[in-house]
């Protein structure tokens, strides 16, 4: 079973809705970065401590949601392809907010910046957090561009909000992973 098809060797590729677009077009950038984020979450999962099954389940669920989001990013508004996709609605955002609230309850309140790092899983969660914020920047740019052209699908606005919340989830998860591994968190000290 081969994985390479060669169809993209000349710099264009296909959306799920069929259009041929440049590989460096904004949609492809957007879901390409989402794929990077998804892979980084996989890297967090690979080094997760045993006593964090809750986070393990949540991260796996988030990976599935990112594929759902990726499929929407690969589909132009009003395309008949969207009938095949699972809806992206605000409930996905509340799902994340619930998870943030639950983890936050375990953590001391924070009024300063913390140096990203600590346990390896926490350190990688911080990397994932910042890549998530990069995804959010691309999504925000795509939303702006599509809105200007009157081609914005509502699913994409939800994705942007989801990514905003996801970066907060990853921040809280990083702190939580340090807590359950008894790793001291370091506040940013000015010089």
């Amino acid at each position, binding site marked *: *079973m*081969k994985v390479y*098809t*060669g*169809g993209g*060797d*000349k710099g*264009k590729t*296909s959306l*799920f*809705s*069929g*259009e*041929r677009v440049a590989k460096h077009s904004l949609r492809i950038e957007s879901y390409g970065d989402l794929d990077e984020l998804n892979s980084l979450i996989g890297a967090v999962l690979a080094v997760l401590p045993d006593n964090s099954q809750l986070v393990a389940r949540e991260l796996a669920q988030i990976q599935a949601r990112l594929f759902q989001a990726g499929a929407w990013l690969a589909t132009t508004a009003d*395309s*008949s*392809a969207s*009938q*095949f*996709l*699972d809806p992206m609605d605000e409930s996905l955002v509340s799902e994340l907010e619930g998870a943030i609230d639950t983890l936050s309850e375990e953590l001391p309140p924070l009024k300063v910046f913390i140096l990203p790092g600590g346990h390896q899983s926490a350190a990688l969660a911080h990397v994932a957090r910042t890549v998530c914020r990069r995804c959010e920047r691309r999504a925000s740019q795509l939303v702006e561009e599509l809105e200007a052209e009157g081609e914005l699908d509502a699913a994409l606005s939800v994705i942007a909000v989801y990514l905003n919340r996801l970066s907060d989830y990853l921040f809280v998860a990083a702190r939580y992973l340090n807590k359950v591994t008894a790793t001291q968190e370091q506040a940013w000290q000015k010089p």
Partner: protein
Amino acid sequence: MAETLTSSNGDHWITLEERRQLSGEVFELCCTRPAGFHFLAGQHVGLRIGQLERDYTIVSARQEPRLRFLVEQLEAGLLSSRLASLALGSSLEMGPPRGYLVERATARQRVLVATGSGIAPFVSMLSSGFQARYLLQGARRPDQLYYRRQVSPLVDNYVGCLTAPGCLAKGKGWVYPGQVTAYIDQLLPVEDYDFYLCGKWEMIRQATHIIDRRFPEAKVFSEGFY
């Protein structure tokens, strides 16, 4: 939609009722259609015997009472040789329908391009009422243009692209001596199209690059195999 077509449409048992040889290496299986089984024209299902499983495209129309599948007997194909000798009346396990080489709403004309057993999804689509401007069917010899008689009247323009030497069949206006890719490159008039491609990935790769050059605004839907 995604729901009704896959997850809630789980595994089924079907019974082999008839086998029809289409050429030396290709045959069609006719099976029972389970009550409540839905699919979109162009989709495929996994057929299983014991541990062996492979995907086969449904060639029957959506409204047909039986399910028909196109099977190419591959030299190393364990399942296809089992299917070639399976006794009529035997049961087969069938997975849910999958795949997105199906009708997509469009204002544009469609061009369907198939090579070899890649004709299967288009047989189902055309006989289910799908409208297309062109069907380019590629093969080496005329006898490998499976379903040609059934599908050629269902499209505006049917072109059989034959690559074996000496296939410049006299008087047959629908024959083009060469590959489907050469036809797209040299003869297909420039207009607004959506392309549906099915066949080996190598054909899809070449066709896609030609489409990118000649029809940069076109949508391309493809389903490939090796």
